[in-house]
C-alpha cells in the first residue's frame, strides 16, 4: 500500500522520466494548481514547456471544520502541464496510474466529459474527469482559451486529486485516516488546521480588511502592469483571486458584487496576460 508521500514520489518519478521539470509549489495561497505561474504563463505563447508539481490548493468555502470525511478547505493537487500536448498523452496518463500500482484491466477507468473553466482567469478547456471505479481522481484538460483568447499551441493539463487517489489506494473512507507515511496520518497533520481555518474563514475573518486588501492588491496589480512588470503583477492576480474566495466564504459578497468581483479579477488577469505576451514577442523579435 502506497502512503500519501509515496504517491507523490511515484508521480514525480514518473513524470520526471517523461521529461517534465519538477518545479516546486508557488508560495502563495491559490484555489488550484492552474494558478501557479508555471501553468498560467506556461500555457501562453509558442514556447514548449513540460512541468510537474504538487500544489497546495485553498478553497475557503469548501472547509467543513474537519467534520466531513470528503471535503477539505485545503488539499493537494499534483499537476502536469505539457505544451504542445503530446499525441500519446492519454495512454501515458494511464501508464502513470500503473506506476501507482493500479492495473487498468482490473478497474473501471472511465473518461467523463467535463470541460474545465476558470471565470477569474477567463480560461477554458475541453476534456474529462477521469473516474476510477466511480471515483473522480483526475481532471484532464486541453486548454483552449486564456484571458478569453485562443491559445496555440494547445497545452494539456493533468490534475491529480492526491487525497482521492490515496483514499482509493488505501481503501479509506475518511481523508483524515490516510497514511501520510508509516507513522503519521493526514488527520495528524491537518485536522486541526481544517478546524481552525474553517472557523477563520466562516466566522473570524475580518471582511473589511479582506475587502481593503482586495482593493489595494488590485491597484498594485494595475500599477505594476503599467510599469511593464507582468510577473509581480500576476502575483496580484493570484492574491485578489484568493481574497475574493475568502470574502465569499465569509459571506461578505452580495449578489450584485459577485459578478463584479469576478470581472475585476479577470480584467487584471487579462491585462497581465497581454503584457506578458507583448514582452515575450518583443524579446523574440530582439533575438532574430
Amino acid at each position, binding site marked *: 500500500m502506497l502512503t500519501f508521500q509515496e504517491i507523490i514520489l511515484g508521480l514525480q518519478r514518473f513524470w520526471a522520466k517523461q521529461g517534465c521539470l519538477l518545479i516546486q509549489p508557488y508560495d502563495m495561497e491559490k484555489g488550484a494548481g492552474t494558478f501557479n505561474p508555471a501553468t498560467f504563463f506556461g500555457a501562453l505563447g509558442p514556447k514548449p514547456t513540460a512541468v510537474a508539481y504538487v500544489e497546495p490548493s485553498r478553497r475557503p468555502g469548501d472547509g467543513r471544520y474537519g467534520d466531513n470525511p470528503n471535503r477539505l478547505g485545503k488539499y493537494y493537487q499534483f499537476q502536469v502541464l505539457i505544451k504542445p500536448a503530446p499525441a500519446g498523452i492519454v495512454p501515458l496518463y494511464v501508464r502513470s496510474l500503473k506506476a501507482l500500482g493500479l492495473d487498468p484491466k482490473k*478497474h473501471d*477507468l472511465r473518461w467523463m466529459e467535463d470541460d474545465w473553466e476558470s471565470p477569474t482567469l477567463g480560461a477554458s478547456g475541453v476534456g474529462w474527469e477521469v473516474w476510477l471505479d*466511480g471515483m473522480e481522481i483526475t481532471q484532464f484538460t486541453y486548454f483552449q482559451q486564456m484571458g478569453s483568447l485562443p491559445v496555440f499551441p494547445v497545452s494539456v493539463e493533468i490534475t491529480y486529486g492526491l487525497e482521492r487517489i490515496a483514499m482509493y489506494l488505501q481503501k479509506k473512507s475518511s481523508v483524515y485516516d490516510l497514511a501520510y507515511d508509516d507513522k503519521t496520518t493526514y488527520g495528524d497533520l491537518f485536522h486541526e488546521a481544517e478546524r481552525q481555518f474553517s472557523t477563520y474563514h466562516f466566522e473570524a475573518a475580518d471582511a473589511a480588511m479582506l475587502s481593503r486588501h482586495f482593493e489595494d492588491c488590485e491597484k498594485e496589480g494595475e500599477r505594476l502592469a503599467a510599469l511593464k512588470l507582468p510577473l509581480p503583477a500576476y502575483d496580484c492576480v493570484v492574491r485578489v483571486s484568493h481574497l475574493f474566495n475568502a470574502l465569499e466564504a465569509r459571506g461578505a459578497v452580495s*449578489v450584485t458584487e459577485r459578478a463584479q468581483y469576478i470581472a475585476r479579477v479577470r480584467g487584471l488577469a487579462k491585462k497581465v496576460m497581454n503584457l506578458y505576451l507583448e514582452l515575450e514577442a518583443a524579446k523574440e523579435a530582439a533575438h532574430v
Partner: protein
Amino acid sequence: MSKDFILEIGTEPLPARFLAPVLEQLSAKMRAVLRENRLAYEKAQVLGTPRRLAVILTGVADRSAALSREVQGPPARLLKDESGGFTPQAEGFARKQGIKPEDLATVSTPKGEFLLARIHDPGEAASKIFARILPELITSLEFAKSLEWEPTRLRFGRPIRSLVALYGKSVIPLKLAGVRSGRTIFGPQRSALIKEAGEYAGKLKNLLVLADPEERRQVLTRLLETAVKQTGGKLDQEGGLLEETVFMTEHPVPVVGHFRLEFLALPAPLLKMVLKKQLKFFPLLGPGGLLPSFVGVRDGVSEGQAQVREGYERVLTARLSDAAFFLERDRKTSLQSKLPLLKRVTYQNKLGSMADKAGRVEALTGRIVGRLTAADFPVNEDSAGRIAALAYADLVCETVKEFPELQGLMAGWYARQDGLDERIALGLEEFYFPVGPRSPIPTTIEGAVASLAAKIDSLAAHFAVGNAPTSSADPFALRRQALGALRIVLEKQLPLDMEEMLSAALAGVRESLPLSPEDEKRILADLSDFLWGRAEGLFAEKDFSADEIRSVREGGLRHLPNAFRRLSAIHSVRRDPDFEPLAAVFKRAANILKQAVAKKEVIAQDGPQRSVLTEPAEIELFDCLEHVSGSVEQHLAEARFEEGLKEVVTLKPKLDAFFDKVMVMAEDRNLRAQRLALLSRLVRLITRIADLSEIQGPEKSSAQPVIVNR
C-alpha cells in the same frame, strides 16, 4: 471485382452525448458522397463507441460507373475567330467542361447551331475516390462542442489518434491532424492488425469491443436482466441512463453493489439523483420502493469485479454521506427561516434577488386568489399564499445547490419535515409543474395558482429586461413557462383575465425596473401576443383550425376556458350549412361599420329604434334580433356558446334580406345612424362568441396553417 471497405477514426474518449448524432451524420454523408461519385456498394453500416467512429461498406465496386453526357455551349459561330484560332468563348467553354477546344462538336437546334461538349467520364478507381473523399468527409463531421489539439488546428469532438482506411487489402493513404492511416486498431488492452477490410468486425470482437451500438444495447440489456435477477428488484431506467451507458462503453459489464439500509431514509428523488446523475448507477426498485442495491456498468472485462464493486460502494457511501450531511444541515432550520437568505441569490441581474421574485409571486398569487374568490371559485387563500412565499426557500438548501433538478421536490420534503399542511407540501413539491408538454400540472388549486403566478412573473420579468425569445433562442425557457401557465388555466378552468394578470405582473416588475409608460404598453402588447401565440399552438394541437382560433383572439386571453368553449362551439356549428354564409354576411356588416367609423359617421347611441326604421326587411331583422338577443345573452351568461351560436345562425335569412333590400348608407342622416346602430348591435352580439369575419370560406379554411413557432 467488388471488395469491402472500412474506415475507422480512432479517438480519445468521445462524450456519450456526441455519439448518436455524429454516427447519423457519418452515415448520411458517406452515402451521399458515394452516390455523388457513382460508386456502387451493397451495404453500408456505421459503428461507434467512445473510442472509434467507423463505417463498413460491403461489396464496393472497384470503379465508379462510367458516364457520358453532352453539354450545349455558346453559338457555333463563336468556335473560331477570323484568323482560324479558337475564340476565348470556345476555349473557356471547353476548359469548363474539362475537354480540349479541338474536341468540341456542334449541334443544330431550332434556335440555331451551338457548340457541344461530349464528355465521357470513364469512372475512377474506388481507392482513388476514397483517398479523395475521406479527408473532407471526416473534417465535415460536426459536434456539439469541438476542440483543437495539434498543429494543423483541425477541429473534432475529441483528438483523433488513429486512422484505419482499407479498401480490400490496401490502405487508403490519408493524413489528418498529423495522423497517417494504417491498418492497426486499438482495443482497451491490446491492438490488432487488419489485413483486409472484411476482418474488421471480427478483429474488434477479439479485442473485446462491441462496436455496433445496437448490439451493445442488446448485450447490455441482457446482462442487466441477469444481474438484476439476483437482487429481486427491477431496474429504474428513467432518464435515459441505458442509452447513455450504451454510448459510454465499448464493452459493458454490469456490477451489482449494495449500500447501507440507513440511506433509504433519504428522500427517494435525492437518492436516485446521487445514483443516476452523480455516478451513472441504475437504482433498483422493489415492491415497496427503492432497494439498498444498485447496478453500475463498467467498461472492460469482468476481471477484478469484487474490487470494482468495492470501489463503487465506497464512492457511493461517500456521496450518500455527503447528501445526508447536506440534508441534516438543511433541516437544522425551517424553510420559513431560510427566506432571508434568498436576498443573496440572484434572480436576474436587473431584477434583483430571489427574495424580490418571491415577493412578487406572493403578491400576484394574492391577486389571483382574490379574482377567483370573487368569481366564487373555491381556493384556500392561506395555503396558496404560503406556497408562493416558501416556494424558493429550497434554493438556498445544500441539497438543491448540489442538485438543481431537485428544486421543488426538496421544498415539499422539507415542508413535511417542518410539519406543514400536506396541501402546502404538495403545492411546493409540484411548484415547477408541468415539467414537460404532457406531464401533469399541480394537483391542488392552491399549488396551481402559486405556480401560475410564478410563470406569469417570469414572462413579465424577462420581457421587461428584453429577454423575449427569438425564433432561434429561448434561453429562459419562456415558451415552456407560457405553455405551463396556459395549461394550468385551461385544465383548472380558471376564470382569470390573463391580460390583467400580465399587467399586474409587469406592475410588480416595475418596482425594481423603471419602465416608461410607452415601454410598458409595448411590453404588454408583446406579452399578450406571445401568450396568445402559445395558446394558438395548444388549440391547434386540439385540431381547431387557424381561422377558428383567430376568431376567438378578441377577449380570448381575458377568459381562456371560455375561449376554448367558444372555439368548440364554432368548430361544431360550422357544419351547419348556413354558418359559413352567415360568416360572409357578418364580414360585410363588420366592414360597413368599420368604414363608417373611419368616416366618422354617427352611429345612433340610443339605437336602434324600431320606430325610426322604414323598410320591412330591417324591421324584421330588428324584431328577430330583439327576439334572439335575450336567449343568446342567457346562453352566454351560462357559457353555453354552442347554443348561443345556433341562435345566431337563425338570423341568417333576415340578414340576407336586409342586405338585399336595404341600403345602409341612406341619404337621411338619422336613418343612416339608426341602420348603423342596428348592424352594430348585431356585430357586438356575435363578436362575444367569435369574430366571424375571420372565418374563411370552405375552400380556404384548411389551407392556412397556424404558425406555432413565433
